[in-house]
């Protein structure tokens, strides 16, 4: 089994690809709301601290392991373990990542499909039908959801099948600048049409009286989940990173871009929500109900609405390709099947599982599967509450306690002794404990409901 020789061509590709993977629907409808309801600027400060203590060390660890092996997460973990004299069974962490990726893609594609559908819906939206009715109409038909789910999965398969350079790199280099331009347009729109001052104050005015231990846990969770860690995506993209790129600086840039886009998304959304007196709730309701309602009343709303949903769709697509790529890369490097066949087969599995998630909106809406959740909720529970935190925690434990110092020093650029020492401390003692805290905190409600 040879190391792959593929590396990103563009200097910025890894940063854009990793930021694209990190910036997804969760950032856009999750981070701004959490910031606003957890002390505004105080939350943002705590969040930045958590990025430095959890996100950055684990991201660096994933890149180090991936780039060292230049293989998919399963073989990268195995390679790192063998080279460090540890058990090759550490590859289980890589398998967990592949599984997470496929499971997340299955339901993420359904939500992203709704975003695609909303491009057209928002272009024709008017006050005659309320946004709640629009949302019900869009999700009531399983056939409609299936169509858009199929379109979205097909886009993923198409991009991945084309390969790392001709597919992923080319698409990322086009999509990410477009995403930045669209988000700037939406922020400017919020500045002109929205209650921007209230939006700024909601997100940034520090209110330390609202800071509780739960705020720290919420910030830690956001810092971890927001960076696409624990599911092999960053490790896989890291395996394509050129040798001369500085891992520390690159990781810092990715984390910074991810935070910047999440903040800009908040600045694009909340001023509009406040100006039109709408519900600022988190999650799909915020964008599919509240924002649609605002666009139908706004000047040029039929033009700005589609721009907003194209932005969401691009964010979703840049994330979803990073969910499918690790497993396709594994099948490809093990020569089990060719890349296009792997992309089609694995994409088909995600598509099939996604049918369960899309039925959760209509025919299976009253059916419960795991821990009282519907099918989509159960998939979310398995991945976000179990597999991803476990994956992140074990990557941190492996990198901190088992990965040989020689590998890390060689992968970090020269003259980075200070960075190495700080990273080593955090990855060994801080990151695993904090991810474990997030993991346990997420499971408490589950056990309380038993």
């Amino acid at each position, binding site marked *: 089994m040879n190391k792959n020789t593929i590396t990103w061509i563009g200097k910025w590709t890894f940063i854009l690809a990793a930021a694209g993977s990190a910036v997804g629907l969760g950032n856009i409808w999750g981070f701004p709301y959490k910031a606003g309801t957890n002390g505004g600027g105080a939350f943002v400060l705590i969040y930045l601290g958590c990025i430095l203590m959890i996100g950055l060390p684990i991201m660096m660890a994933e890149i180090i392991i991936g780039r060292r092996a230049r293989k998919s997460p399963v073989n990268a973990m195995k390679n790192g373990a063998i080279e460090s004299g540890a058990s090759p069974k550490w590859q289980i962490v890589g398998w967990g990542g592949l599984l997470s990726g496929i499971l997340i893609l299955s339901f993420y594609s359904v939500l992203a499909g709704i975003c695609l559908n909303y491009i057209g819906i928002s272009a024709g939206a008017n006050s005659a039908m309320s946004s709640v009715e629009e949302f019900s109409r869009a999700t009531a038909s399983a056939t409609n959801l299936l169509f858009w789910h199929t379109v979205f999965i097909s886009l993923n398969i198409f991009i991945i099948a084309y390969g790392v350079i001709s597919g992923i790199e080319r698409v990322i280099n086009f999509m990410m600048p477009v995403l930045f331009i669209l988000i*700037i347009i939406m922020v*400017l729109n919020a500045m*002109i*049409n929205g*209650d*921007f*001052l209230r939006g700024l104050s909601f997100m940034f005015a520090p209110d330390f009286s609202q800071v509780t231990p739960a705020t720290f846990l919420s910030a830690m969770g956001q810092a971890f989940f927001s960076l696409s860690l624990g599911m092999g995506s960053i490790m896989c993209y890291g395996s394509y990173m050129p040798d001369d790129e500085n891992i520390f600086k690159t990781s810092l840039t990715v984390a910074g871009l991810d935070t910047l886009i999440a903040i800009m998304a908040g600045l694009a959304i909340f001023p509009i929500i406040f*100006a039109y007196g709408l519900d600022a709730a988190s999650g799909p309701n915020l964008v599919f109900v509240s924002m649609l309602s605002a666009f139908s009343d706004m000047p040029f709303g039929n033009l700005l609405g589609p721009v907003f949903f194209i932005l969401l769709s691009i964010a979703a697509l840049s994330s979803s390709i990073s969910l499918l790529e690790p497993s396709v890369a594994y099948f490809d490097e093990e020569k089990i099947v060719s890349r296009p066949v792997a992309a089609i087969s694995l994409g088909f599995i995600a598509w099939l599982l996604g049918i369960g998630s899309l039925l959760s909106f209509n025919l299976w809406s009253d059916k419960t599967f795991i821990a009282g959740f519907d099918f989509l909720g159960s998939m979310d529970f398995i991945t976000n509450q179990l597999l991803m935190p476990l994956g992140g925690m074990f990557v941190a434990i492996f990198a901190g306690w088992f990965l040989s110092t020689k590998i890390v020093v060689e992968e970090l650029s020269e003259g980075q002794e200070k960075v190495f020492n700080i990273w080593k401390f955090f990855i060994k003692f801080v990151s695993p404990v904090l991810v474990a805290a997030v993991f346990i905190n997420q499971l408490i409600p589950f056990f309380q409901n038993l």
Partner: protein
Amino acid sequence: MENIKKKNFYIYLGLSLFIFLAIAPWILTHELSSFLLRSFNAYLAIVISFIAGSLWWRDNLKKDIHLEAIVISMLAFAGVLIFEFSQGIAIILQIILINFLLRFELKVIGEDENILSYIETRKLATYIITILCVIQLAYLFNPYVN
């Protein structure tokens, strides 16, 4: 090379004041905001005139290019006066001028490889200032700030 680095540093330094003047009106009181908007416009006029003016001194300038540089400087300061009558038009004028100045400067200095990093920084600065000007326009038209 050292000279280019120094030049780029001054561009970023100057840019930071633009960023402050563009963002501060959203945060500070409305009374202070109108002063900051005026300051932004005046500062931009000074910067445009300075850059256009620095191009006058080049020995190899043709007469018509000389004239273009003077017109840019004059229009930039006209923008300060226009601001007193119509803030929106003044800012739109400055957006056009700052972008025209970039094209003009590149035409004069040429896209020499030795100053590639300076050209990149200049382009970036122009795009950022354009966005900041649009942010100023947004402030003027936002119904919730007054």
